[in-house]
């Protein structure tokens, strides 16, 4: 199944931002391999439209099952014979005061948001290093840059993604691989769907550009980092937050 199409792996690519990333990469003519814990209407429709998995491949994987992540990437390499891009998008958030948080909720956030990204990245490097080319985009959060009550563990994992980005960029840059990071601010998504109108209005008031972000705002930054226009950019983070953290 090898051809000239570039191949991207997207973690958590079945709904919300992940779905939008997958759709955008497909629109750009890339082949996309994605996984998430469970199928969605989006993945089912995509698979039905492409039963041989020529441009879209999806598997059900729990991100905390680390050996499965390596197997997924090896499967992608066998199927498409290349991996050109990785978007570490998958994340989970359990809100609550750290003093009251259950062990399981701490563990799951660290496993899904950070450890899984590290294992997945390592597996993808096995495909990128032989090609001496590749681009990795890690999804962080404005919570990595500014403190908020109730998200200490989530913030810690997202700040770690920034550290991972910077050190790995230095490490694999000589191998032709770029590593960058996008830190979304509050944007209209499942994550903010539970916010009251008053909360949303307050966020917009505190944002210099006076609105919440959109999924397209975030996807545009990811598209840029993966594009040839960013060929000389690595180890960098763009906060897509309307100036919220300025």
């Amino acid at each position: 199944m090898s051809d000239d199409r570039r191949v991207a792996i997207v973690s958590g690519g079945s709904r919300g931002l992940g779905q939008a990333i997958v759709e955008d990469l497909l629109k750009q003519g890339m082949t996309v391999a994605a996984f998430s814990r469970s199928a969605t209407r989006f993945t089912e429709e995509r698979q039905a439209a492409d039963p041989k998995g020529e441009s879209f491949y999806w598997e059900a994987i729990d991100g905390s099952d680390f050996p499965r992540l390596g197997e997924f990437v090896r499967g992608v390499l066998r199927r498409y014979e290349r991996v050109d891009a990785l978007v570490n998008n998958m994340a989970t958030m359990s809100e609550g005061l750290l003093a009251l948080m259950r062990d399981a909720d701490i563990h799951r956030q660290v496993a899904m948001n950070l450890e899984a990204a590290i294992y997945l990245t390592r597996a993808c490097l096995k495909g990128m290093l032989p090609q001496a080319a590749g681009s990795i985009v890690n999804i962080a959060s404005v919570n990595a840059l500014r403190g908020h009550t109730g998200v200490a563990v989530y913030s810690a994992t997202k700040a770690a993604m920034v550290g991972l980005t910077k050190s790995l960029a230095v490490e694999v840059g000589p191998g032709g691989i770029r590593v960058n990071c996008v830190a979304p601010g509050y944007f209209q998504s499942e994550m903010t769907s539970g916010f009251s109108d008053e909360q949303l209005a307050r966020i917009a008031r505190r944002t210099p550009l006076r609105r919440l972000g959109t999924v397209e705002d975030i996807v545009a930054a990811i598209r840029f980092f993966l594009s040839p226009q960013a060929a000389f950019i690595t180890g960098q983070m763009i906060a897509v937050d309307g100036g919220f953290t300025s």
Partner: protein
Amino acid sequence: MDNLNETILAVVRGVVKEKNPELTAIRPDQLLVEDLGLRSLDLARIIAKLEVKLDVDPFAELVSITSIRTPGDLCAAYAKCFEDEEESAPPEESEPAATRSRPGLESQRELRKRARD
């Protein structure tokens, strides 16, 4: 085993050649860093290429990466993977390692399990 060694040395030679086109011949006893001018990322590239070709990674658990100083050390590390596998494989499957179909994830998982046990 000769095929396996040839595969490994060809990959090392390819990476060395990219860095230093004048160095076309390599010996198993040459030092990867001092003699062949490779850096740790080059070694990572070699191992990544070999994992794609052979579908095994002896450094995941069986062998310490810090023990690798020469191409010969690399050959010994990969031979360890395939020796263990050949011991347990049925006779009809014991063709040369580099030419047979990839041992696959199940067998690597089994290797790792045995290494832990």
